[in-house]
């Protein structure tokens, strides 16, 4: 009678929705490339959020209608975007003044690994043969006030991504504030990882089995 009994956890869209609910009215937000980009379409109505893209735009709007793309108006993922009335353009040093100077409230990023102390690895697997590429990730995690990570709870091969200590090269140390996975929302606190919310059907045991780092419950 019940479909997908084996399928436990939120869809990507639901994960992005959870992130979106935690973005308050008036926030300045930078969204990483990929899944984080979905968040902007899911912020509840009535909240005005200003999106920053590190390639020089504050006040990024939605995607342009087909045929109206401007190759000189793009986001950090090099996709064509639009600008809202009240947007502004600036050069790269000014853009990273916003980032490094702690002017941006929230950044949403993907992850390869997150440690229990909030270390993030998301730019390299350390593979000697891969082309290393870091972009703005290290600046974002070092400079933005609050770092949200959105990621599958485990890798494609079932390995935990939330670990005691990252084995991949770090993007930043002790930088992550909250993790949104398909299974749970987890806060990184000085006392360790605390589970805020679990997807329907997920239990603490189920979650811990898929998490290398120790998980705690709020009282």
């Amino acid at each position, binding site marked *: 009678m019940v479909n997908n009994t084996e399928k436990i956890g939120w869809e990507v869209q639901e994960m992005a929705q959870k992130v979106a609910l935690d973005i308050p009215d*008036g926030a300045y937000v930078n969204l990483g490339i990929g899944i984080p980009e979905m968040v902007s379409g899911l912020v509840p109505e009535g909240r005005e959020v200003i999106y920053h893209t590190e390639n020089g735009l*504050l006040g990024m709007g939605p995607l342009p209608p087909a045929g109206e793309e401007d190759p000189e108006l793009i986001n950090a993922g090099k996709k064509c975007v639009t600008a809202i*009335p*009240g947007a*502004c353009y600036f050069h790269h040093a*000014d853009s990273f*003044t916003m980032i*490094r100077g702690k002017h941006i409230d929230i950044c949403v990023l993907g992850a390869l690994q997150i440690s229990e102390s909030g270390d993030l690895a998301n730019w390299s697997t350390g593979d000697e043969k891969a082309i290393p590429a870091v972009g703005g990730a290290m600046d974002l995690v070092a*400079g933005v006030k609050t770092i949200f990570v959105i990621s599958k709870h485990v890798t494609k091969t079932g390995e935990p991504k939330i670990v005691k200590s990252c084995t991949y090269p770090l993007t930043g140390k002790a930088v992550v504030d909250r993790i949104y996975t398909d299974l749970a929302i987890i806060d990184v606190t000085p006392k360790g990882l605390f589970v805020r919310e679990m997807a329907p059907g997920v239990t603490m045991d189920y979650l811990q089995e898929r998490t290398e780092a120790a998980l705690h419950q709020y009282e």
Partner: protein
Amino acid sequence: MINKIIQTPAEAVADVFNGATVMISGFGEAGSPIELIHALIDKGARDLVVISNNTGSGHVGLAALIENRQVRKMICSFPRSTNSKVFPELYKRGEIELELVPQGTLAERIRAGGAGIPAFFTPTSVGTPLAEGKEVREFNGQLFVMEHAIRADFALVKCHAADRYGNLVYNKTARNFGPVMCTAAETAIVQARKVVEPGQIDPEAVVTPGIFVKRVVEVTNPADESKLVAEERRYPW
């Protein structure tokens, strides 16, 4: 909705606390936010550390703030000028502190404060008394002094036009320290000659992006400081 517009200078500076560090824009009169400064005099916060290029003229604006004994220490590059009497007198009596900073180093320290750079090296002041006690280091055979970032609790800034997001444009050489000060203060408070709708400022021409600004108050006809000085006006009046 984001709306940074505040109705009066008094409301805009209401939370400036005793002991606060306050940046004040302006190069001489140009760009000095005189109505915000007067509101700060009315508010009466004391024991302030003020960062501003000069120390004001006559008995209005920054000079009046100093004369009203609200300033414990000035950080500036040029505390002397033709009509600057208030600061020199207090300084000679040992009643106000001074940290003298070369003008470009002052601008760069403020920019660094806003940009998350805690310290940098500069060739300015090497071998002079203003480098004494500071770390000096050689790069490519030349000596440089290490200087630290400056941040502030508040910035009081004057601009030409602003929108509800806090995007700003300035007027001519009244721009000076305003843009860097907005970046380096926890709370940047701006007086604008006019408030416009979002989009009315060309997005290519915005000088201070709204992210750096917390409050905007419209002051349509700001006082002409040199006139007040010539008329020997005193604030509070």
